[in-house]
């Protein structure tokens, strides 16, 4: 049973009704499909005294492929949306997350967080969305420049999104940031006009799929964020090797995984961004440089003449 707010718990027990439990599905192209593979794994509550159970989809390579197709198909139009609009959409995410904070606190607790940590994490997650919402129409100004070339040309450099960003999850053991870690990686990618495919940690699927519902309830176009659940070990190589993925964000600490990821990523010269040292609760885990990491610099020359 979900430890939502106390009031909810109470009303449920009082009426002694049978709770309707949620089916946790994947989030691809703005829809909630089950994994095409039919595979699942059982999630059980990590919090003491809870009997919560859920079957979580184990995404297959085809689910990942579909997610990349979805992400690719909307990337151009998402990047073409005005910076101001992207900012408002991210802010909308924060609004809805704030509205559903109790649900997320509950799920974080089920994923093993203390009440205190869960509260703090939801607060930080909302604030992080607001933080990046505010960057939408500013990072370009920070990183763009007019270059004083010696010839009679107007020369300027701007940032453009790399395209599709695949994000492998932070390990569950690392300061329990199922929600914050996810948002801290998705927000800088999409605020810059990228679309993304996010794989959640096996131990933190609830907040991920519930956050997908927040995304769906906001104005984020379908396909901009795609969320998969399943096995990191199984999918890591696919994320790193898919040739239509432009950037790969990961948080792997082990030398072996880092090596494997970069080797596979070299196949299409993916941008590989390792954020293994990030401490998600700290201010340094948010910066415009994280937006810049999944951007390309485009320089344009134009003659100045008559």
């Amino acid at each position: 049973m979900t430890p939502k707010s106390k009031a909810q718990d109470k009303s449920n027990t009082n009426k002694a009704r049978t709770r309707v439990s949620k089916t946790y599905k994947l989030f691809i192209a703005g829809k909630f499909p089950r994994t095409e593979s039919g595979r699942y794994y059982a999630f059980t509550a990590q919090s003491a005294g809870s009997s919560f159970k859920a079957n979580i989809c184990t995404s297959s390579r085809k689910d990942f492929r579909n997610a990349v197709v979805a992400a690719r198909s909307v990337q151009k139009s998402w990047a073409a949306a005005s910076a101001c609009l992207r900012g408002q959409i991210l802010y909308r995410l924060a609004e809805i997350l704030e509205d559903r904070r109790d649900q997320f606190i509950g799920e974080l607790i089920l994923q093993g967080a203390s009440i205190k940590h869960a509260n703090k994490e939801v607060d930080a997650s909302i604030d992080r969305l607001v933080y990046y919402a505010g960057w939408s129409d500013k990072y370009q100004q920070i990183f763009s420049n007019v270059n004083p070339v010696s010839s009679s040309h107007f020369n300027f450099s701007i940032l453009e999104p790399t395209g599709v960003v695949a994000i492998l999850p932070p390990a569950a053991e690392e300061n329990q940031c199922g929600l914050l870690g996810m948002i801290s990686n998705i927000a800088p990618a999409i605020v810059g006009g990228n679309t993304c495919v996010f794989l959640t940690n096996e131990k933190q699927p609830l907040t991920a799929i519930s956050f997908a519902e927040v995304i769906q309830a906001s104005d984020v176009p379908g396909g901009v964020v795609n969320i998969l659940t399943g096995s990191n070990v199984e999918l890591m190589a696919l994320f790193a090797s898919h040739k239509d993925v432009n950037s790969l964000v990961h948080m792997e600490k082990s030398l072996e995984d880092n090596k494997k990821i970069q080797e596979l990523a070299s196949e299409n010269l993916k941008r590989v961004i390792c954020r293994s040292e990030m401490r998600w609760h700290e201010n340094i885990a948010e910066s415009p440089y994280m937006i810049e990491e999944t951007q390309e610099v485009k320089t344009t020359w134009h003659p100045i003449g008559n």
Partner: protein
Amino acid sequence: MTETHSSLNFDTGWQYAPAPESTEHIQIDKQYKLFINGEFSAPQQGKYFTTSNPATEEKLSRIAQAGKSDVNRAVRAARNAYEQTWSKMPSKERAKYIFRIARAIQERAREFSVIETLDGGKPIRESRDIDIPLAAAHFFYYAGWADKLKYAFPGAQVKPLGVAGQIIPWNFPLLMAAWKIAPALACGNTVVIKPAETTSLSALKLAELFQDIDLPPGVVNIVTGDSSTGAALVEHPDVDKIAFTGSTSVGKQIMHSIAGSHKKYSLELGGKAANIVFADAPIDQAVEGIVNAIFFNQGHVCCAGSRLLVQESVAEELCFKLRERMQTLILGDPLDKNTDIGAINSKVQLDKIQSYINIGIDEGGQIYQSSAKLPNKGYWCPPTIFTGMAQSNRLVQEEIFGPVLAIQSFRTASEAIDKANNTAYGLSGGVWTDKGSKIFKVTSALRAGVIWANTFNKFDPASPFGGYKESGMGREGGIQGLSTYLSMELSNDA
């Protein structure tokens, strides 16, 4: 343009007399050693290879082949210099050394130009007017950054990486050395650099220059050799950063081979840039731009406009004018000041280009080559264009790195954009139209790192250069060129 097409006569009458640049003041030693720790030092295995003039096939000098142990020595020297000298030196002092390099190159510009042309085959006009002045300008630009780095990264603190291992190609030998060395030094790193096997001389002259200006020993070390030398440098555990310019396939190998290490990397790789000419383009300037895009430096340019996309309504006129313009390109002695098209850099490269020309013919393209007479000795390829090409042709898909242009037509802007982007590369692109709003539409839609509107193949130290997708990662030049030589730290202060 009507059907008449009266053609011009360039063949009879007044022709230019030979105007060779003098080589009298050029000193090329019979043999060059490695440059390690501020001194020329023999390779431990005692191996040397020959470097020759691709325009005459004459031997110029012998160049040391650096082995693993030599690379070790060079990295050790760079590490010591980093720890004991360069990273401790106040940034203002560091800047002054880099300024000195810029000035010394300017002073010896003529000498560098001639050597670049002798060793690489490029026209003296290009080495004199482009390669060497730009190399000096690059040092001058980055010198000024050395003591201002904190302003380049708002809200962050930056530190040098340590020892940078750099591998450069043969198409712009000194310029690529400058692109690599200048930002590395400005950011406080020390350098081990490996020039391309066929074009080591200008880097070795640069080593002499470093001695002349008293650059502290070990700050820049130059290890000459073949790909095994490069591999030893890439794999060396005490190198903190790899900067590579070259082919995409080698770039991938490098990224693969340093996977799992702490090494930062920047890669500047191949390209297959589309040059898009709309019907409303300034057509005579577009013809010139096309010539500059594909025949500059014999097409040995990673950002060459090797695909021409021309709007159907002007395709015939444009191609006619292009063919006529090609007839006025002077091919021959690279040392002649009037030469437009020099020698192909090596036999290997010439064979590769020739094989692509054969592929183009086999695939049914219509070939046109300038009727320039090729010298008997040396490696030469006349300016070549293929019309009637399609996306499916290999000449449209693959980087040739030679003076060979594949021409396709298109009907609408969106078709042109789709075709231009339909490639694994993304280094550069060109757009020709007189309509301002169309320029911004098309330049925004092209997935490439450098876009030239109504111009092509322009370079400047203040202008970042580098590609999307398989054309590499990281930028060289401009403020963006700094970050690949630094590590960044943020502070938690809100």
